């Protein structure tokens, strides 16, 4: 049965929003990272210069993070009818050139273009521009040579006027020699040699024939579901969100699926909690739905505390309406009347944007009484965290919202039975909720078609550390760590050999280089002694010291231990003392055994996830990098001093010696 009233109400709402205004626009990536790189100044500058240049119908817009964190700030430009062009590392002078050359003159700005990630295989449309980049690391940069060679060749064919050749900043392809991309079809050629240039112009540009021997056919590894709107819409505008299809899932659910239908779809999708533990979301919702109570709550856990992780911040800053829609859908499915966003106070921009999203959704009737005429009431509010890592744990988070210190409670009873103010409560992570509307609109099966084994769908990772291009990536589950590091993020910084990849933050472990080919799934990471965690992925190179890193993570957990249970409070401290002793070169072989014993005790006896997982970084480094611990123990104080000096100067051990 279809509730016609809801359907008509939503259609009326969409009708009021209207079509996206035609014409040119410029979008500036204004998330915290972008703003730190100067995006807010760019925004004002672009507005002023567009007005000065008489470009009155060019809209200067705000967007969330595009994901390419290493080349912030980013600006996307669309001029009438043409595909949009993304620019990176845009400073004041580049912004001026964008206005003068691109918006006024219709020519791209050289050296700053980020190539589209689409890979074309046919040349139906005439070539309008050519992007070039030298992606090999050895030798000098040959991009300039490639650019001028193609330009000369085009001249010989009388095409130089119509087709611009532009050096790209990044093409999403690494270590594949000279790369050429023909726009707008996105046919991409790799390992181009100088003798191929004439062929490319002659055959591909003039005769629209694809050169199969050079064609790059591998699809981009990224598959953006959760990040579908990040960078593509103004996060502070509900109209933009509605135009992009946000809240369609809510309207469909209220009109036809019903709460049970939503839960069925979630189960079919195989979505598991993206906060780290990986509990199936559909099952969680059903458990909460089954609990009888006068009131129920849903909570969005946005207390992203893992150092080195910024997925949740980027999602909240880039697409707050989709997360809100996910929370409303969760509320609808479990039968809750109220939802809370629990957001870190350290993320003021995310707090402001979610606040704005809630207010505008309430004003339009997507929140509050009788949502879309369905007769169902639901409202959402924000509660701020206050800098306690342990509050990412469900029961501690609940205590914090209630206004108490964030101490965890033993489970069971689980929050789905007895949670906030003793009522059944369903807590989901930001990324989980952001995936929900997509699943409702596209169907659970479409989501489950991605991924492998028991890990379905996609996962967002914040890849940072000693990687060439630190960024936000979203890949299907089952992608290997190697592909993420080398084929999406461009490999290691300065080409120093990689030592390991840390996942899961202070609760995770280190995957050594020899296991990089492991497909990323919840189970595989666990088998390697790490965890999926919320999605931080830190690349460490040969210069990083594993004993030092293990101590860094443990110190974090010791500082953040709430002190309620002894295994975590005392155990963590004791292990840290032993690690410090070893790192000063005063350790003894039996200390390692002692560390293992205490760690096992913490894993088994701690009350909550913090204490249970705090030993993971130590145990996994002991497992794979025991030689580094032994080097400290055997080398004594003189070795320790050298190592410390090397770390302080950011050098390798050899250079420091």
């Amino acid at each position, binding site marked *: 049965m279809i509730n016609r009233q809801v359907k008509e109400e939503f259609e009326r709402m969409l009708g009021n929003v209207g079509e996206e205004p035609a014409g040119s626009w410029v979008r500036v990536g204004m998330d*915290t*990272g972008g703003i730190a790189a100067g995006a807010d100044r760019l925004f004002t500058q672009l507005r002023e210069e567009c007005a000065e240049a008489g470009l009155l119908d060019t809209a200067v817009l705000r967007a969330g993070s595009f994901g390419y964190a290493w080349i912030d700030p980013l600006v996307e430009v669309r001029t009438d009818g043409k595909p949009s062009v993304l620019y990176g590392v845009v400073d004041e002078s580049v912004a001026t050139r964008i206005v003068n050359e691109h918006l006024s003159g219709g020519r791209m700005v050289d050296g700053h273009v980020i190539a589209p990630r689409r890979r074309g295989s046919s040349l139906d449309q005439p070539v309008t521009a050519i992007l070039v980049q030298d992606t090999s690391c050895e030798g000098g940069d040959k991009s300039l040579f490639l650019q001028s060679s193609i330009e000369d060749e085009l001249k010989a064919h009388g095409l130089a006027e119509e087709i611009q050749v532009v050096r790209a900043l990044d093409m999403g392809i690494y270590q594949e020699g000279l790369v050429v991309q023909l726009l707008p079809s996105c046919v991409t050629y790799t390992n181009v040699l100088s003798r191929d240039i004439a062929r490319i112009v002659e055959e591909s540009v003039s005769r629209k024939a694809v050169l199969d021997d050079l064609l790059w056919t591998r699809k981009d590894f990224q598959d953006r579901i959760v990040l579908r709107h990040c960078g593509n819409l103004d996060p502070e505008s509900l109209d933009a969100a509605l135009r992009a299809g946000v809240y369609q899932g809510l309207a469909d659910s209220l009109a036809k699926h019903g709460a049970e239908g939503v839960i069925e779809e979630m189960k079919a999708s195989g979505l598991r909690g993206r906060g780290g533990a990986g509990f199936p979301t559909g099952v969680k919702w059903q458990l909460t739905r089954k609990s009888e109570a006068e009131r129920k709550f849903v909570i969005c856990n946005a207390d992203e505390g*893992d150092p080195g992780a*910024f997925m949740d*911040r980027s999602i909240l800053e880039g697409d707050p309406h989709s997360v809100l829609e996910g929370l409303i859908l969760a509320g609808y499915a479990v039968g809750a009347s109220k939802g809370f966003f629990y957001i870190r106070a*350290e993320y003021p921009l995310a707090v402001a944007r979610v606040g704005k999203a809630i207010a505008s959704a309430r004003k339009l009737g997507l929140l509050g009484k009788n949502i879309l005429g369905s007769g169902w009431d639901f409202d959402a509010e924000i509660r701020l965290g*206050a800098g306690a890592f342990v509050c990412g744990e469900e029961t501690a988070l609940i205590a914090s919202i*209630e206004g108490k210190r964030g101490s965890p409670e033993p489970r069971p009873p689980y929050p789905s039975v007895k949670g906030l103010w003793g009522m059944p409560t369903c807590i989901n992570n930001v990324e989980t909720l952001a995936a929900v509307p997509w699943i409702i609109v596209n169907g659970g099966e479409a989501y489950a078609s991605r991924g492998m084994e028991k890990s379905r769908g996609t996962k967002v990772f914040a890849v940072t550390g000693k990687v060439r291009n630190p960024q936000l990536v979203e890949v299907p589950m089952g992608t290997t760590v190697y592909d993420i590091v080398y084929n999406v993020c461009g490999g290691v910084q300065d080409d120093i050999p990689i030592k390991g990849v840390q996942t899961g933050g202070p609760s995770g472990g280190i995957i050594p280089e020899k296991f990089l080919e492991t497909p990323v799934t919840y189970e595989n990471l666990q088998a390697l002694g790490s965890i999926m965690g919320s999605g931080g992925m*830190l690349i460490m190179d040969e210069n990083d010291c594993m004993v030092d890193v293990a101590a860094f993570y443990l110190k974090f957990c010791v500082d953040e231990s709430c002190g309620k249970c002894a295994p975590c409070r005392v155990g963590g401290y004791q292990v840290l003392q032993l690690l410090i002793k070893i790192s000063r070169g005063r350790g003894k072989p039996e200390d390692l055994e002692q560390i293992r014993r205490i760690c096992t005790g913490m894993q088994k006896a701690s009350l909550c996830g913090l204490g249970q997982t705090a030993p993971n970084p130590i145990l996994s480094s002991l497992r794979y990098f025991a030689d580094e611990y032994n080097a400290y123990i055997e080398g004594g104080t003189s070795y320790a001093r050298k190592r410390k000096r090397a770390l302080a100067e950011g050098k390798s051990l050899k250079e420091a010696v």
Partner: protein
Amino acid sequence: MNAAPLPPLEEIDPALSEEINSYLEEWKDKEGNLIMMLHEIQDRHGFVPREASLLLAEATGVPMARIYEVLTFYNYFKLVPPGKHNVMVCNGTACYLKGAGRLLAELESRLGISDGDTTDDRLIHLETVRCIGCCGMAPAMVVDHKTLGKLNPTDMAGLIEGIRKREESGNDQ
């Protein structure tokens, strides 16, 4: 630090009590309001004054000890006034690996204070934070709510000089 003795209720600045009342007005019917009101107080003053806690305890009936339990548990809340300019060095893992420690050491030696302290003239407060989520720009810092990224120890001298110059010229921005 020794806490000053608390003044009797009637001697507390009426402006402060008016301020607390405005928060109570806004939050009284909402659930889970204590931490949110403490956030409002800290946003306004830069720390949570004891007098404000006392007024809040008086008005809400929540014992002062419970309020202090919350204030001392969470890292974010401060009980003493911060320096005029706040320099926060991010010590998230990405920043740590890329040399946050070197930034901190440089700042400590230039300012002559250690992490968590304020200079004698109460001008600059130096602290480390867990992670500001700008790992793409590591190592990063937040200076007076402005995030700076991809820093070197050699940038620190200019940064401190910049704060001092702005202060001398009387321009807070």
